[in-house]
């Protein structure tokens, strides 16, 4: 059972019509997230699923604290994506530091204690995990909406959680005061030890023009566009 929430804090920029229009986009996003989880599961040989998703408008000032403590060390695999017009967006696979070490170890078949996620091989493995999940998400989103979505190569970064999100928020700030943030938690069904400890998040932040394109083209799953 996926926990889906629509979070719209009471800021002056809120528009009731946004939440109404998001009703059509939400199942499209959920299907794309499931696709991302399935692709990641296949790559890692693990059972990974979407456990919760929050869709909500966030102020730029609040973005660095959206995914936990801003000073906590984390590893992010970041991609920018763009659409047919001038719309852009940001994708981030974000995991806590200990979790990233264990995920890299699983991908490489090594002992977590021997893995340095900043070394080239583990970083490449984590980049590929990001690549697989983010590409699967965008492919599903593109198929459903008819948008051609291009993605950049990955940026793998180990830093304070807030600093990774600050860089992303700064880019959004060039065009908007607030943005839609799709904040998703993935869970593992096994191995149990990792499943309990891992904080694995998948964040999607479209710019307003990209969001508008998605809203225009999103139709309920099963309907004919």
């Amino acid at each position, binding site marked *: 059972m996926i926990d889906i929430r629509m979070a719209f804090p009471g800021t002056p920029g809120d528009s009731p019509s946004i939440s109404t229009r998001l009703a059509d986009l939400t199942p499209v996003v959920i299907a794309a997230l499931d696709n991302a989880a399935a692709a990641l599961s296949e790559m890692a040989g693990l059972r990974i699923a979407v456990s919760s998703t929050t869709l909500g408008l966030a*102020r*730029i*000032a*609040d*973005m*660095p*604290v959206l995914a936990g403590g*801003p*000073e906590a*060390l984390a590893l*992010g695999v*970041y991609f*920018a994506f763009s659409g047919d017009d001038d719309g852009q967006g940001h994708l981030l696979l974000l995991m806590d530091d200990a979790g990233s070490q264990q995920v890299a170890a699983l991908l490489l078949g090594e002992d977590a204690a021997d893995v340095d996620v900043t070394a080239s091989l583990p970083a490449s493995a984590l980049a590929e995990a990001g690549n697989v999940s983010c590409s699967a998400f965008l492919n599903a989103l593109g198929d459903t909406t008819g948008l051609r979505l291009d993605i*950049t*190569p*990955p*940026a793998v*970064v*180990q*830093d*304070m*959680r*807030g*600093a*990774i*999100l*600050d*860089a*992303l*928020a*700064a*880019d959004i*700030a*060039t065009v908007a005061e607030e943005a839609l943030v799709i904040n998703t938690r993935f869970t593992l069904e096994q191995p149990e030890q990792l499943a309990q400890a891992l904080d694995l998040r998948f964040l999607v932040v479209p710019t307003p023009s990209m969001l508008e394109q998605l809203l225009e083209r999103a139709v309920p799953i099963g309907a004919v566009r």
Partner: protein
Amino acid sequence: VIAASAVRAPGASSSIAVGLGELAVARADTPDGPQLVAYGLGSCVAICLFEARSGVAGMAHVVLPGESPHGEPNARFARNALAALREAMVKIGGPADLRRYQARIAGGAQVLVISGGGSLPRVGDRNVESVRDELVRAAIPLLGEHVGGGKGRTVWFNPRDLGRIRVRTVGRPELVF
């Protein structure tokens, strides 16, 4: 936007978290007064101003190097942040003459570097350059900086430290200057 969130840890003075595009001010002569903190600065720059006679301190969390479209005092933009700080600092007893303040800055990193060139602009470098230019324009002496590089920073600014700031970067010793 003026930050309003205050968090008090047991046995410690309270902190005001200064979010992106926000600013906050405080006075040194308040015994249990708050310190100002910007957590996890990436490409953003924290401008920390202090005026010794009044003991008034202010921090702006600058996000972008340019100017507000409307030209109003605004901590988000490097070109408008000093005016926003002055406005807020005067309200708590600071002088209007910016030349009486001293400045420290930190931030401006390039945290996300995409392999093969990348599309994210180097906002961090441009933020630093723009903030430095504005400090020169306002004749505010820049007494210390920790800027650039590829790692994020957290900056604490306690008014009772007489203008000095503490900067934490992952994996490195904390700096005080």
